[in-house]
């Protein structure tokens, strides 16, 4: 049972890294719906690099770098050019989906390196994820830089008027978001399932995106949400361990995705917003024009 739980937590780290990056993005007011694309590209690059060089660190560096680059590309479009953030995000997703399919294809198959060590079966990335959650929370809510980030996401004009460069803060945040998405992808292809195949995420990036909304932009709730989703995902693959023979495996496979929809709906109701507050950054998705 412990192994199953450990595996679930490893799955949740994939969601967690990407969602944490997106959370930072969104706290600064930038919406990146192309998260899945960043993860695909980061994961593929990390995989190819690690396989070519035989070095995990290099793989991670490459994955993080490409994630960061794509994050910056999204930033350029949405911050500097003040374009539609959904268009840009969707663009990144489809671009990555298409190009990684092509680039990664010759590498289809196992990575062929020794596994990254684990602590009693628990992925070191989960530990890293928890640490990052703590760091992010502290950064966002206990430092002036965090106050600046949150202000930029709520009311960029007010932040700019207080001497904060909205552009700089947003760029730093999209960079962080991109790097974390790249990390998520790299953790997927180098540790969670070091076997490359095209479109390997199959919607995990979108689940991560949904998790940010669930979390009400709070890293700790995000951690809980990601863990829950990881467990749900793992159980959906082995339903016989919980409810043997109750439903078809195909129905179980739908469950994690299906549960997302009612949760999203509930947290979107006016009742819920009134009860738990409107945490959604006020300026989310809106380009900022000076003055």
């Amino acid at each position, binding site marked *: 049972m412990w192994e199953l739980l450990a595996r679930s937590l490893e799955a949740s780290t994939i969601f967690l890294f990407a969602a944490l990056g997106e959370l930072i993005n969104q706290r600064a007011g930038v919406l990146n719906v192309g998260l899945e694309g960043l993860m695909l590209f980061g994961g593929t690059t990390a995989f190819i690099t690690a396989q070519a060089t035989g070095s995990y660190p290099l793989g991670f560096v490459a994955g993080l770098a490409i994630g960061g680059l794509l994050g910056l590309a999204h930033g350029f479009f949405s911050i500097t050019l003040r374009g539609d953030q959904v268009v840009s995000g969707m663009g990144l997703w489809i671009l990555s989906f298409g190009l990684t399919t092509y680039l990664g294809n*010759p590498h289809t*198959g196992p990575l*062929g390196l020794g596994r990254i060590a684990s602590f009693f079966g628990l992925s070191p990335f989960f530990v890293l994820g928890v640490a990052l959650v703590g760091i992010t929370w502290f950064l966002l809510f206990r430092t002036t830089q965090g106050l600046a980030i949150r202000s930029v996401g709520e009311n960029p004009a007010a932040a700019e008027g207080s001497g904060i460069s909205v552009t700089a803060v947003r760029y730093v945040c999209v960079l962080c978001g991109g790097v974390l998405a790249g990390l998520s992808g790299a953790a997927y292809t180098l540790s969670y399932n070091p*076997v490359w195949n*095209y479109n390997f995420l199959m919607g995990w990036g979108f689940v991560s995106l949904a998790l940010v909304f669930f979390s009400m932009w709070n890293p700790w709730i995000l951690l809980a949400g990601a863990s829950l989703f990881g467990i749900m995902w793992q159980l959906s*693959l082995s339903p*016989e361990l919980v409810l043997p023979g109750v439903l078809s495996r*195909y129905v179980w496979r739908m469950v994690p995705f299906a549960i997302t929809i009612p949760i999203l709906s509930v947290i979107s109701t006016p009742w819920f917003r009134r009860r738990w507050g409107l945490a959604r950054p006020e300026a989310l998705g809106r380009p900022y024009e000076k003055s």
Partner: protein
Amino acid sequence: SSASAAAAKNATLAILHFSVIKGTTWSGAHDRAGQRLHAKHPNVKIVVGNAEFMGLPLKDIADKYPNAYLGSVVASDITTKRNFIRFFPRQYQALYLEGLIAGALTKTGNVGIVSAFPNIQVLRRTAGFYLGVQDAAKALNKRVNVYVKYVGDWYKPTEERDIASTLVSQYKVDVLTQQTDSGSPLDVAQEKKIWFVGKDMDTVGFYGWSNTDTVAVSFDTRWEVLYDRMIQDWMAGKQNPRTFLYLGMKDTMTLADGTVEPTVDIMNNKKIGVDAISPKALPLIPKSIVQLVGQRREQMLKGDWDPFTEHEFVSNGTGLELKGTPGTPIPSKGTVVKKAQQVPADDWLLGKFNFDLDGMTILK
């Protein structure tokens, strides 16, 4: 599915595979077949590609192109036409040998299969493997459970990994094999340091996936043997002289470099036969079983023995109910579907084999 078509006098062989992915066990073997045929028949144009079909299964267009010779892998449908042949290799023979090795290797007495979903092809191949496992168990006087856990698709690497992991961690499986196409189960076996038994292709030898420390043995399918028969028929001016090709270990071809190879064989790291057994696994397998593997292989190469003829088929009560009229229900548990020493009909094997053998555990 896969097809070959040759046009006019200057023959062209087109091998189309619909599986999206190159770098899988199944498609990889087809790819290799194209290369080997190209070497053997330099004057025949061989085209291998991922087929894009907006419809048009070969069966339907066969009438439209009466001068072409078409063929298709059997999944279960065995209908044919004058210029349309069905073919499949007798992989169950090699799988039986793998089963012997797997049954001998397990210490926990649990062998796991990561499988796609039940269909005739899968059930039949699994039966071959299972008979091997049980023969080894009997010879060594131990109990071996075979667990099957389905993924739901041929190619879902992430899910295949998790299902393999669950087999290892929850069902204490220490020998793993797969009836799916990705490299994930192999990767799990390597990670968990248990034995893996491969499918469709010698992935250690051809893809360099993993090594013989993990892969105890694999089986290798040479589609080129089947295609070669069809090319030869075509060049001799004959189209579909048979209704289907169901070739096994006794059927061989000679490659361009002079190697004679049977349609299927156990193979690992480019070694064949008993030598294919991983050097690290060999000491762990009782001599009697190694001998048995060698003996059965020799018999099958000669065509003197066949596991499906030798053994009786007793239904496990699980499998796949075939619909349609008349339907084929799953024989109820304990039913003796075929008696020992009785030769099963090829069309029955290819089109009706819809049950698991008694004693297997299908995880739902």
